[in-house]
């Protein structure tokens, strides 16, 4: 909202203050000033001039050649086309260097072969508004050489303010002036109301008003004004509207806008001719009823919308916009002024429904001062009369009677304030009772009663935001100044309160994963619905049990993610396009699942089963009452090709499953879980976007904590990677991982001081036997007592190993806690182990 300082000065004398001081005061009151602008319509030299000579141009029938005296009594020759130019006239002369608001830059030039060193300006050219034809005629006493804007006091300062929705009262200049006056402890001048009325005409006899529902319209006033002309408004009025950012139209429309900006109360003027049957009714619309609003759009109304009607139907959408059929026209002379109070909620709903946010709806939504309505109507009539007189129309008549439907008068609102409570909240030591009373008094609150601690105030009807004690406390704080409240640290009981340990764990998970050579990214939580197709997630899969936005910014950002894969794949591709290969990114975020989705009901692959049932400790104290979507904290990482670019020591090498496994295993080491972690071939259809031949479920103990794998070649292609050039991706369920981290561990305190004996063994096993099968068998070896470690160092298949088999070589260490082992002891356990492995996994010792 634009606040003109000149205009504001009508209600409060601010001449003693610099604009920056006023701005600071406004901001300290909670009326935030976003910018201060010096409002000038033109720039450069435009000064008062005197036409000392004026002759007809020899080659033109309408041009005159003038000699004009201006700054320091210099005289310039200026060619002028206006009819009203004459010798002796005081004029506004724009000299070379001036730039006018219509875009004209003044230079020395020639017009019809005659030199012209400037321009004599009209109102319009000066940007003062729509004026009379011809150049501006200044008063004969105007001092030659003075800046025109300064002489006419046209310079203005405009504060662009940003108003919070609670301060409906400040949607008008008077409200802002009132706050300023209270803070600056100065007087407020209310605008004059009464015009010259006549009982020769009557509002009541001109129009009847019926308000059918008093909840929809608490008050409705109508006043008949006659003899108007839709002339351009006087300059003072136009200038103020311009400074406030409103386009002047004609005196009738301009006055209604002016009074709205002044009082904060929207006003509507109807051309009397358009009120058919001489009747106005306020009622709810009929479902399907139509109204063409002023903006030319046809609105199909609903039964909840409030309309203003005449005998034939709707002529206005109450509190939002008038109808095109009742608009003020160029030949309008007689009007009915409507000033009313409509239900804020319904105005808001209707305005939202039609996407029609207007100055009027903005104010009605926030609430208007119902007690001021008759005053505003009188003020409009008064200004219509006065402004018309200023432009030469002395025929304006105001009906002596105003129609005022106000069935339920507003009741005074008393609020009690306890001084002790105020002191406790604000801890301003020096604030005494008298000061409190004074502050509230200045804001228009009336002290009704006062006992020791309790002050009872009546709240003025313009302060709809003051509802209870705390609101008064804020008012006192505002006027006293927040800077007067001391700054103190609270005295606390230092007992630490509960914190979900998953939160701190997540941060350490981030740090430790980053330390594995990864970079943390953050993406929006949104993906595109079509990403599920790109990821080849079939219908019915749990990863498609997603939540959709009703009003996402675009199709690309319309679905909440169930996996971080889509955004990470796009990020890797984006990095490649920027010439960065081999990026290694990770993100922690949430996966969002719709509990009620049909895909949550089908039996999912086992990895996902607990997503339906297990909601333990996902979040701190979340009220677990409703069927809200599930939000699971997840962490995902992605490693792009190549593993390593070509270098002076080696060729470029590409990345595979095992590089991802290395990162995950190293990372799990930070939590002491690398020993208990296992990778098992991914269950079919568990994660459809991974390559089933190179993907695994990650287990810690018997809990599946995540999955890892090379990208499915088709998905690779879908995300514009080469078929064989896709990244490696992993995703971890942080809540499941954390449960494992929290499990108690056993620690070995006694370590052997004796040397270990190493033996290398090669076995032949069938190809389907995994390394993990062998490790599991070793773990179960019943006679195990000296075996310390069992590490794979070679894998071989091909001649002479028979087809369908492979050879695995292990380095096996034996160690005793109490002595150095001899060959016999080692051989005995080794023989037992070989027999056991032969029995359990069919391993044959290779000779």
């Amino acid at each position, binding site marked *: 909202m634009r606040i003109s300082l000149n205009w504001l000065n009508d209600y409060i004398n601010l001449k003693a203050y610099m604009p920056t001081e006023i701005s600071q005061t406004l*901001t*300290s*009151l909670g009326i935030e000033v976003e910018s201060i602008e010096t409002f000038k319509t033109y720039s450069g030299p435009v000064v008062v001039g005197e036409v000392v000579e004026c002759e007809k141009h020899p080659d033109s029938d309408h041009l005159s050649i003038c000699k004009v005296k201006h700054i320091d009594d210099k005289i310039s020759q200026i060619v002028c086309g206006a009819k009203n130019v004459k010798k002796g006239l005081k004029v506004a002369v724009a000299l070379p260097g001036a730039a006018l608001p219509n875009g004209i830059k003044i230079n020395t030039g020639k017009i019809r072969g005659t030199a012209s060193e400037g321009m004599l300006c009209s109102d319009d050219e000066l940007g003062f508004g729509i004026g009379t034809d011809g150049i501006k005629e200044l008063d004969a006493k105007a001092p030659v050489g003075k800046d025109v804007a300064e002489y006419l006091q046209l310079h203005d300062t405009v504060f662009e303010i940003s108003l919070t*929705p609670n301060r409906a009262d400040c949607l008008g200049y008077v409200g802002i002036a009132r706050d300023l006056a209270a803070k600056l402890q100065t007087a407020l001048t209310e605008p004059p109301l009464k015009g010259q009325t006549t009982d020769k005409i009557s509002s009541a006899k001109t129009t009847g008003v019926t308000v059918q529902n008093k909840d929809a319209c608490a008050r409705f006033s109508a006043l008949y004004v006659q003899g108007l002309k839709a002339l351009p408004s006087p300059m003072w009025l136009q200038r103020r509207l311009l400074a406030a950012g409103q386009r002047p139209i004609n005196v009738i429309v301009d006055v209604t806008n002016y009074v709205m900006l002044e009082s904060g109360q929207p006003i509507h003027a109807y051309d009397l001719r358009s009120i058919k049957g001489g009747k106005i009714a306020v009622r709810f619309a009929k479902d399907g009823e139509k109204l063409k609003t002023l903006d030319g759009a046809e609105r199909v109304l609903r039964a909840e919308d409030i309309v203003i009607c005449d005998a034939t139907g709707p002529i206005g959408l109450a509190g939002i916009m008038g109808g095109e059929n009742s608009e003020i026209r160029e030949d309008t002379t007689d009007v009915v002024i409507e000033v009313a109070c409509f239900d804020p*909620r319904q105005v*808001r709903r209707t305005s939202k429904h039609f996407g029609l946010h207007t100055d009027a709806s903005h104010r009605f939504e*926030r609430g208007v001062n119902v007690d001021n309505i008759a005053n505003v109507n009188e003020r409009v009539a008064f200004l219509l009369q006065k402004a018309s007189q200023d432009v030469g129309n002395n025929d304006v008549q105001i009906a002596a009677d105003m129609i005022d439907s106000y069935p339920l008068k507003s009741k005074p609102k008393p609020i009690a304030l306890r001084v002790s409570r105020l002191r406790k*909240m*604000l*801890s301003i030591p020096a604030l005494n009772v008298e000061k409190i009373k004074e502050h509230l008094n200045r804001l228009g609150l009336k002290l009704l009663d006062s006992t020791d601690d309790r002050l009872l105030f009546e709240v003025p009807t313009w302060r709809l935001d003051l509802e209870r004690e705390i609101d008064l*406390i804020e008012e006192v704080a*505002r006027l006293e100044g*927040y*800077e007067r*409240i*001391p*700054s*103190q*640290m*609270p005295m*606390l*009981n*230092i007992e630490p*309160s*509960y914190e*979900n340990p998953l*939160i701190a764990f997540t*941060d350490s998970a*981030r*740090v430790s994963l*980053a330390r594995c*050579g990864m*970079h*943390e990214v*953050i993406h*929006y*939580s949104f993906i595109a619905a079509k990403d599920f197709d790109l990821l080849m997630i079939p219908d019915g899969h749990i990863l498609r049990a997603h*939540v*959709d*936005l009703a009003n996402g910014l675009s199709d690309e950002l319309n679905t*909440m993610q169930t996996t971080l894969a889509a955004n*990470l794949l796009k*990020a890797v591709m*984006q*990095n490649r396009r920027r010439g*960065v290969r081999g990026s*290694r*990114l990770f993100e922690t975020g949430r996966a*969002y699942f719709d509990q009620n989705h049909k895909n949550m009901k089908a039996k999912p692959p086992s990895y996902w089963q607990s997503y339906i049932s297990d909601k333990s400790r996902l979040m*701190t*104290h*979340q*009220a677990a009452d409703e069927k*809200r*979507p599930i*939000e699971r904290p997840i962490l995902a990482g992605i490693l792009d090709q190549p593993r*390593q670019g070509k*270098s*002076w*020591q080696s060729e470029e090498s590409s990345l595979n499953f095992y590089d991802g496994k290395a990162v995950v295993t190293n990372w799990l080491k930070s939590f002491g879980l690398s020993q208990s972690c296992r990778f098992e071939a991914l269950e079919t259809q568990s994660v459809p976007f991974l390559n089933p031949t190179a993907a695994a479920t990650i287990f810690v103990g018997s809990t599946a904590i995540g999955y890892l794998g090379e990208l499915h070649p088709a998905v690779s292609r879908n995300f514009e990677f080469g078929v064989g050039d896709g990244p490696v991706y992993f995703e971890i369920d942080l809540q499941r991982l954390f449960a494992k981290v929290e499990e108690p561990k056993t620690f070995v305190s006694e370590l052997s001081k004796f040397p270990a004996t190493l033996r290398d063994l090669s076995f032949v096993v069938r190809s389907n036997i995994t390394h993990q099968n062998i490790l599991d068998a070793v773990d179960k070896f019943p006679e195990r007592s000296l075996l310390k470690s069992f590490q794979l160092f070679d894998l071989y298949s091909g001649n002479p190993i028979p087809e369908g088999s492979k050879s695995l070589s292990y380095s096996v260490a034996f160690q005793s806690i109490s002595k150095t082992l001899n060959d016999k002891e080692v051989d005995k356990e080794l023989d037992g182990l070989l027999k056991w492995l032969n029995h359990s996994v069919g391993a044959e010792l290779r000779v």
Partner: protein
Amino acid sequence: MDIRQELEQTKSLFLTSLSSLKKTPDHMKVEELRIQFLGRKGKVNSLMELLKNADKADRPLFGKAVNDLKQNIEAEISQLKIAAEAWQMKTLLERPALDVSMPVSEPQLSSSLHPVSLIRMELLDIFRRLGFSVYDGPEIDFDFYNFSALNIPEDHPARDMQDTFYLKGAEKLFLRTHTSNVQVHAMMSTKPPLRIVAPGRTYRVDNDPTHTPMFHQIEGFMVDEGISFAHLKGTLDSWVKKLFGINAQTRVRPSYFPFVEPGAEMDMSCMVCFGKDKSCRVCKGTGWLEIGGCGMIHPNVFESVGYDSERYTGFAFGFGLDRMAMLKYRIDDLRTFFDGSQEFLEQFPVFSR
């Protein structure tokens, strides 16, 4: 085979190897030599085997000869070992020096945390020291937690301050517009005293260089008997000074957030120009930067969660983590935070400050 012949051959073979090794006593070759002659299946042992089959009469003589040879070889090899070590040391020290400027060619383990994470972790550290616990809360929430319980009733113009993403098919469910919903969750499940901060993702329908549809906020609130506005100011000043340094100033000025009253806007002094540069791009010459909203928790909020609003008072504040990171790292376009560029992210190593 004739032991005599064999003895001579072994002797001369050893001498040949020895003389060549003496010139370049490579330690690997010395070891090979030792295995060749002194190993389990070495030449000396084969001589010992031959000795067993020799004539009884010859045995003492040959026995001594083999033994002498063995001792001789052992002595020579231990000499050689010393020489080999010296020679190896010499080679290591006298070779041309490496070009130490050659680039590292193993995959480089550079690592970074997102600037918003860095700021969040730093702030959480400060708030934990101030006695706050960290909470989280749902990002998809019901109207009640995000609006109604926070004194923002339906059809209230205050809802326009936060343009909301709604869920398809669920009118009352939407993406939280602020982290303030955690206030309601926390208060509904625990009793005072409360000292909580809650960082997290938040969502509003917005997209320009300083607003993204998803952004990060942190909410802080304290509820107890006797908490006053002065405590809010003290706490605010304390964390800002810890994050931005002792010279940072703070101020509060009246503003409106429906769930606090008195409500305030928190500003901090511009750490770029300290209010001295009228053309400062960061603070636009005002010397102050808006960082967020705060105030005393509105009694309506306490009442909607079932707290005794007479007994308890509290303060709350909330601000944007992304904005804080933009201020701290002087980043102009918020969107760079969310586009996953590794080149950008590499500037924020794990332990950067």
